[in-house]
């Protein structure tokens, strides 16, 4: 197996992803391109630059896979010149036992205060386009 496919395999396994049939980052990248295209038309941009996207650490997305998918999906679109810049946002959960909001950065994390698992995710699980540069 080549280095690249080995890497993809490791990435997939680490994420519990079946890379053979699961590429939803492509759907997400297409959504971002749609948002950028609409914005560019509305603003009269002939050239798009940086597109900033906030990725919650608890979002169901692998940043590297999103970046690769975006590079493939932007070709031939009005977002062709766009450069995707990803910023991470910490995850947040409500601990029922502590009755407090706590930081949660992995889906399997325990509550940092009580080490329990009575957690409900309250933030850091979304993917949002923050702003778009253009001219």
């Amino acid at each position, binding site marked *: 197996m080549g280095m690249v496919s*080995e890497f993809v395999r490791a990435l997939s396994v*680490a994420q519990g992803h079946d890379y053979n049939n699961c590429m*939803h980052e492509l759907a997400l990248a297409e959504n971002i391109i749609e948002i950028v295209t609409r914005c560019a038309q509305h603003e009269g941009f002939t050239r798009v630059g*940086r597109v900033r996207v906030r*990725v919650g650490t608890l979002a*169901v997305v692998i940043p590297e896979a999103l970046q690769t998918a975006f590079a493939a999906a932007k070709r031939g679109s009005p977002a062709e010149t766009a450069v995707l810049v990803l*910023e991470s946002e910490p995850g947040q959960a409500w601990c029922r036992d502590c009755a407090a909001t706590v930081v949660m950065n992995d*889906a399997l994390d325990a509550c940092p205060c009580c080490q329990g698992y009575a957690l409900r995710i309250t933030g850091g699980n979304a993917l949002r386009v923050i702003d778009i*540069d253009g001219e």
Partner: protein
Amino acid sequence: MCTTCGCGTETITLDGKVLPLSHAGHPYSTPKKLTRRVQIEQDVLGENDAQAALNRQRFAAQGLLVLNLVSSPGSGKTTLLVKTIERLSARQRIGVIEGDQQTSRDAERIQATGALAVQINTGKGCHLDARMVAGALDTLPLDALDILMIENVGNLVCPAAFDLGEACKVAILSVTEGEDKPLKYPDMFRAARLMLLNKCDLLPHLEFDVAQAMAHARRVNPDIEIMQISATSGVGFEQWLDWLEQARAARRAGQAA
């Protein structure tokens, strides 16, 4: 993490060793600053969520109970649906939306019971989205149904992120898959209200630890309901069918209120 290409948020390991991610090699150079910056603050899944909300309104107006069935391929979703329809069709009118990458075999298995079924083929798509479901709804007589079951594409990752407008997700885990599935795919088991532990008829032949599987599911989702069933033998179906009828009654009451 690297804010240019997003690499470095996850520690990727290969056989337990951290896989070095070369930064120098990433192809995304720092963009040059252009003249204007437009604030957007838009959810990337916003369009799907908006369509899901429309679907949900449509279901509520009909008092229709809609479930989104999620699992790995082969956990027994279609078998469960066929058995459920056979056992319940005298009391509840059940329709099915089948999602698979290819073929209409599963819709045909459902249609053989006499129930209404439509097939969505997603091609390379690894999940159903709200727009596909909206398209399928247009071909179904919703007012002639009490319960609509959506069998999602067999995949425990992406379907967790795409709301279809369902009342809730039901995750099916079969005992041939291993007790640790809920820990490997936490997003899905967290998103589900009910977990059906299927193929329990095979337990005598396996070394599957039911208590541990249940503990793993509750670790990622303390509120999840769990039932042990067999879609082939019908074991545990009384509880599952009761759950369905109660959920359906609750929808009806919600509509009347």
